[in-house]
């Protein structure tokens, strides 16, 4: 699946076999109506499972595919906020969280599951545990633009097995909303998960990296703050609009990459 273009850099093409999404928050109508999309209420953490991981499990389950040996690439943003788990410790100190008495007494009030919610491989781990995924896994964090950079790795993996790419985040929380509004000025927040199944013979459409950044690209219908979900939402948009050709830019605070979509 990896072909060498005229430049020295390999250009990878992936073929989409299925797409499912579970979205919450301020979901634009266009995305809500996209095929394979389900809109749900925003979720709270459940025991050791962060909302972002919960959305991801539901989106991947909806694919209805046998993925036990699939290669899994996860693109995780904030899986939720674990801030509340530390709040009591700070309030009981009536001052900074880490201050006299923290190590011996107050630290014991922090729930043992907190570390699990704090780990950013939470999405990959929960998918594996809940759905029995045992294949190779590449777990990335805060790297939506890297979706384009990892297309060759995904294309390599499709030679041997199906490839599951999952974008998941739950950033419609006070901690993230405040920061998102400060950074982007956008007040419309989308969270959830998009699951893409790529196979050598996938027929829904093709995704290929685009070295060029800048120039015309397909715009969403309205601005939204959805960290790390954008590559998945872009493909969802292509499916919703039944686009034969499109070019998407993945714009993160520090970096922009681009990919092309085409439909047979």
């Amino acid at each position, binding site marked *: 699946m990896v072909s060498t273009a005229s430049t020295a850099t390999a250009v990878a093409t992936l073929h989409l076999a299925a797409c499912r999404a579970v979205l919450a928050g301020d979901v634009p109508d266009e995305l809500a109506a996209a095929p394979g999309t389900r809109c749900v209420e925003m979720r709270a953490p459940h025991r050791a499972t962060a909302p972002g991981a919960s959305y991801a499990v539901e989106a991947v389950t909806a694919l209805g595919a046998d993925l036990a040996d699939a290669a899994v690439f996860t693109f995780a943003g904030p899986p939720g906020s674990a801030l509340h788990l530390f709040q009591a410790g700070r309030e009981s100190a009536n001052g900074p969280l880490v201050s006299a008495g923290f190590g011996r007494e107050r630290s014991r009030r922090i729930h043992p599951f*907190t570390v699990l919610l704090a780990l950013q491989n939470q999405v990959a781990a929960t998918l594996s545990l809940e759905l029995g995924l045992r294949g190779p896994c590449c777990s990335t964090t805060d790297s939506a633009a890297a979706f384009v950079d990892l297309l060759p790795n995904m294309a390599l993996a499709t030679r041997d097995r199906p490839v599951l790419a999952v974008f998941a985040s739950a950033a419609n929380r006070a901690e993230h909303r405040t920061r998102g509004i400060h950074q982007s000025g956008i007040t419309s927040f989308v969270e959830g998960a998009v699951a893409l199944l790529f196979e050598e013979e996938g027929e829904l459409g093709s995704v290929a990296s685009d070295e060029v950044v800048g120039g015309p690209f397909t715009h969403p219908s309205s601005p939204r703050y959805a960290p790390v979900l954008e590559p998945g939402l872009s493909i969802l948009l292509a499916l919703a609009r039944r686009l034969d050709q499109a070019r998407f830019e993945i714009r993160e605070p520090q970096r922009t990459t681009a990919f092309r979509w085409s439909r047979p």
Partner: protein
Amino acid sequence: MSGGARKRPPAAVLSSSLVLPGGLDASDVLRGTSAVTRLPPEHNPGIGAPVTTAVEAPADFPYPIAPRALLLALEAAGRLEREHGPRYGLVLALSCLHAEPAYLEHTLVHHLHPERMSDILAFCADFPLEYLASRLGVTGPRVRVDSACASGSDALAVASEWLELGVVDDVIVVAASSMIDPVGLTLFRNLRALSDEDDVTASRPFDRRRRGFVMGEGAAAAWLSSRLPGSPLGFVCGHGRSMNAEAFTAMPTDLDAMAAACLDALGPVRSVAYVSAHGTGTPIGDPCETRLYKRVFGGDAYRIPTSSIKSMTGHCLGTSSMIEALVTLEGLRARIAPPTLNLEEPDPECDLDYVPLVPRAIEDGFALSVAFAFGGHNSALLLASEKPW
């Protein structure tokens, strides 16, 4: 994603740098020097293996609060000797920034104050990756991986794939972890993963007295290339990854997935000169690992020198597997297996050659470096000091 030496040309490791606990370097670890020490008050447990080198944010750092793990990453990257080529890739393994006390304290107080958010943007989104890329002059592909304690090994695997595929000719890999603070220790202590002993010899992988891991911190960087200028430090000859699908924190009862990762890394290679074990010193993990090596190597497992440098560095979490891989390459070049320190009373369930207490001369050949992580990630690397084919 998987596959061993048979399919792919090896990725050359042209240079490396380590920021180890206690100011150690690779040769200290090969000799058996421990960095485990007593920690300041408010740290519970009161022992750990901290980095003692002072790290500070660069004068032009754009935000007032900097993640300590990112500063460690910058320190390791800054020490890396390399040529300045036109288009490098970058793989960064950097975990758990949002559990650092500085982030938590600021966010707990100001999470409803947009005007204060710029103070902690260095912890957020793509800043850590892109800041490091800009400091290093990286313009090629870049990604931040996070598979908890397998992150460093996985980062080397992703970089190797880019080289194998011709995406770029050179990749910088950087890993860093810092949770040796009151909050980080609490998170793992409350999960009962840490040793509760107030004893600087408490990091005891494969010893029957082991009671959990001792926290460490550190950073590592390496320049990987598909070119062969000069004399490389060694080669990443194969890599394998899998997930256990069994438990978040416990080791699995079914070893199939762990074995698959090791066998993918090994490819056609059936035995090795040395195994760098994950070896955290947890009661359940070490016997599981012992069973794994018997399964992967059969009867040969008993004669392969196998050790855990976490007995000296503590468990450096997301960067541990990269530190271990780079120390293993140094060991292969020197033909020395580092010892498992504090292994004075071997556990009968851990009955392989775990190189107790003192270093051991090893034969020329391959080494397998393995990592297992919370969440069920398994990652293995096949390493060699000389080009094997």
